[in-house]
């Protein structure tokens, strides 16, 4: 007796067809399998059927072109992103984010597609008990929860590469049956985590992520990434920050500053971005921008310490991008 059925999809179309054939939500697509296995082991999902994407060659490969930018097949592993020479050179914030995610073992298996689709790491979410006994309520928020946009939930999207990808203005490409495909800006793709949904993205049930694209870089682009953890060995972030600046004559022409693990989804720190525009960055300006970023934070008693930590990390990451 098998606990579930396993199907090796040969093509995106086959995968999408298999996924669309099921409206009960018990067919789940699998890439690296890390998050899926975790959710199965925690008793949070119980798929009747796994559609294995690993044998679809169209989902593989990293391509870089100065004019077209970066294309990451959805099966690209975090280890591949972290070690890819072009990414390290051109998109260092992305390489750093991938290098600091999870463990070496997990990075060798975890794919960028799966990473973006992973469920939150919230203590409550990752515990079968709170799925079975939802009515009990009374959930006290942890010291790690969201400090922005947290009226509905303090759960946060768990992907740290997403922080860097959003700063680089990446898009997610998805495909369904019969060659239908969509391109979704990453900021529109990620949704605030929700116990009542089976996913935290706008991916359709009959769709798979085919690749992620990152636009080409303008001349004068500088970037930095920092994941602030309690431990360096292997840890989830208190916050992570990616800064992508485009400078012209030493003045900021464009800035994208994104913070992860501070809001339900990675958050553009637009107040900082606005403040930097057209200015020359020195330590004082970086500090001003960081201060502006945390204005309006709505922490709880337990996680108010995250506000000064975030401010510090934004300031330091802006400075790091300049060096």
């Amino acid at each position, binding site marked *: *007796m098998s*606990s579930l059925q396993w199907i090796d999809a040969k093509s995106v179309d086959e995968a999408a067809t298999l996924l669309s054939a099921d409206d009960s939500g018990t067919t789940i697509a699998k890439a690296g399998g890390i998050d899926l296995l975790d959710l199965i082991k925690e008793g949070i999902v119980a798929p009747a059927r796994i559609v294995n994407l690993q044998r679809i060659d169209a989902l593989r490969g990293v391509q870089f072109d100065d004019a077209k930018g970066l294309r990451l097949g959805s099966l690209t592993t975090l280890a591949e992103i972290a070690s890819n020479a072009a990414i390290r050179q051109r998109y260092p914030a992305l390489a750093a984010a991938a290098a600091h995610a999870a463990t070496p073992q997990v990075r060798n298996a975890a794919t960028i597609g799966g990473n973006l689709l992973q469920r939150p*790491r919230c*203590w*409550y979410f990752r*515990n079968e*008990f*709170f799925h*079975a*006994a939802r009515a*009990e*309520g*009374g*959930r*006290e928020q*942890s*010291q790690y929860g969201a400090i922005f946009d947290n009226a509905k939930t303090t759960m946060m999207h768990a992907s740290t590469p997403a922080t860097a990808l959003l700063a680089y203005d990446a898009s997610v490409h998805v495909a369904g049956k019969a060659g239908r495909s969509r391109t979704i800006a990453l900021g529109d793709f990620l949704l605030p985590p929700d116990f009542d949904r089976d996913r935290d993205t706008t991916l359709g049930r009959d769709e798979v992520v085919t690749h992620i694209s990152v636009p080409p870089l303008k001349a004068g682009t500088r970037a930095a990434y920092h994941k*602030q953890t*309690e*431990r*360096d*060995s*292997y*840890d*989830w972030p*208190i916050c992570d920050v990616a800064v992508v600046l485009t400078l012209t004559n030493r003045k900021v022409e464009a800035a994208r500053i994104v913070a992860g693990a501070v809001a339900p989804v990675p958050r553009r720190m637009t107040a900082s971005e606005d403040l930097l525009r057209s200015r020359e960055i020195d330590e004082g300006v970086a500090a001003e921008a960081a201060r502006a970023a945390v204005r309006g934070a709505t922490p709880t008693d*337990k*996680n108010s*310490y995250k506000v*000064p*930590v975030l401010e*510090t*990390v934004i300031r330091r990451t802006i400075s790091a991008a300049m060096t």
Partner: protein
Amino acid sequence: MSASDERHSRTVLTGIVGDTLQPIARNIPVGEPPELPPNSELRVIGKRVNRVDAVPKVTGEARYTFDVQLPGMLYARIASSTVPHARIKSIDTSAAEAYPGVKAVHILDRVLSIAQLRDPSVEANERFPLVRYNGQPIAAVAATSMRAAKAAAKLVRIEYERLPHVTTLEGAMADDAPVVFPGPTEQAATAGGGGAPPNLPQKGNLRGPARGGLGGGGRGDVQQGFAQADYIVERDYRTQVQTHTPMETHGLVADWRDEELTLYASTQFTLSVRDEAADVFKLPKEKIRVISEYTGGGFGAKFGIGNYGALAIHLSRKARAPVRLMLDRREEHVSVGNRPSSLQRLKLGARRDGTVTALQVESFGTGGVAAGAGVGFAHTAMYAIPNLSVEHYDVFTDAGPCAAFRAPGQVQGIFALEQALDELAHELGMDPLAVREKIDTNDTDDARARKVERRIGAERARWSQRRPTGADQGPVKRGIGVAQSQWAYIVHGTTTCEVRIRGDGSVVALTGAQDIGTGTRTVMAQTVAEELGLRADDVDTRIGDSRYPAGPASGGSRVTSSITPAARNAAYLAARDLAARVAQSLGASTEDIIFQDGRVFARGRPERGMTFVEAVKTANFDEIVHRADRREDYDGYRAKLGDLHISRHGIGGVQFAQIAVDTETGVVKVERIVAVHDCGRPINPKLIESQIYGGVIQGVSYALYEERHLDPGTGVQLNANIDQYKIVGSRETPAIEVHLIEQLGRQSSTDARGVAEPANVATAAAIANAFYNATGKRIFTLPMTPANVLAALRAEDQPEDRS
């Protein structure tokens, strides 16, 4: 060898080698081998010998309980409570029993390893044991596969009548708090030093006061003492609940047969497994065999059979098949032990010259549904403090039970005490080491050791060049701090070793003791090899089997102190026996036969000797077998609690920590620890260093990261895993410099003492004192997470520094 009370006086050199070695007369039991010279004159003892079971560990051949696979073996899973406090109305196991592959289901009728009602009749009418924490084991299922056992365990239907619950220390201390136990309780001691003092008053959830641990207590008149003080430091300190998290979870393979019950156990004490199984199942001890080849860590929590073991045995009996029940990581965190929390109120008074006049300690700690949350014995036993009052209260909560954890109580107690002394030193404008010099003056070996250790450590840590408090201007502030350690020197009363010399010249040494990673096999092999003039590798050590001679518990830092004298005594008898058989052919008297470097020869004539194997062949026997006991310490003990014999001497240790505090992110990094330690005669410096590394690293982990988080609404542990229950990893491991001293106490035939616990005691306090040197702020709350650090840095109520 029968123990004899007869003694004779010998003059022996005692003290610290290279420092204070002096002749002293000791009354030594007749039959004890002659005292050993310092390690520099020995061949195997005191040498950096490789762990004798290292090869099976690096090749994966070492067989842990988790690896035991028996023909027809079943896999078991536990069904646990999903509520924090309730009466069980009904349990329906029919669906679980009907699940394909299920061979047996058992419902627990008695919960082990938690506090027990003094008067059990209070709950005698309950059909099932009351649920007192979320995750309490209730029943278990054995099936032909792990998958089937897991699925079936979920089908056990339990109907609850909920009762109000409380999970926090403060909540449980409130007047109107839900009461965890309806009457006074007792908590029996485990061989690991767990348990709580008996017959204490209990009101609501508060059990106590206990007045000092390990036979200690108050003295003098504290009010008078404070009246004599020029300065008084009064502070609250808080420590968190820490879970043991051994890499191999608790577990047992039970094989119930009519003729014998065989238990493969991941345990710190084979005989505690046997004895608890005999007690619970009303079996004669001889019908139970316990095997523990390798144990994947324990740290104090692996004693007895536990509820998981009881379930495995019941299931094996019902299914008539061997059953393996290993806990999963969640169950490990939740249900089989933790270091209890503490809230400690210390008041410390001193004169201007650093003389401490009085110490008052009031502490509260929660070990969940178990008692034993005291804060150790350092207040009583470490310093010369004339007026002392210690009052400890256990606070019951609806949370998993505490258990002994590497220096139980002492780690929490010293975190507060050594920080209070540091604060006092700064208040008085004195060097913290000078204050210790003033008060660390007891007539004990640990006080004598610490005196030397302070000096060595101060040099290595460049203490005299330390910078003033809060010297760094930038956001990252560095500092160093010092704290002292103390643990009891403990001997396991019933310890026997057997040494066999076989006709082919091979040598076997046996003890029932297990190895949880400390090196039981290796220290035993070295001791026997030294006596027989062999290498450690020449000695085949057999351990971890209750059929072997009774060995010590791996708890309380007592394996080496207990097993090496027994091993030496047995090897000594075997050597003398062999000497007598070959003396004639070597043309010498028995007393003049020497065993050295694999050879046997007459004193003064090494060239005319023979190899050890030749000597055995010359003697021509099938096998020589000698057993010997660990004799009582030559000066006796301060206290005997069953087999736990406690010397009036302790084990010392001094640690210096250098840390960096990022005052903007609140992240603390421990950069370097200088750890200066004593353990009597070091038997194997390589293994001792390993243990000290481990103690320091666990201390860093406790100080900075570890904390059990419970959901107050449900009592569920929220971080019962490895990624969110945070422990030191490779990148948080500081540079650790270990310095060992050799102290010959002359209380046993090897002078060996333990080191596992003393290595873990002082670290958190040293880090806290370094935090003050770095930032000028005290941190009174553990762990030093960014949340707690940033709060401490913002705090207004902070000491004034006069130094």
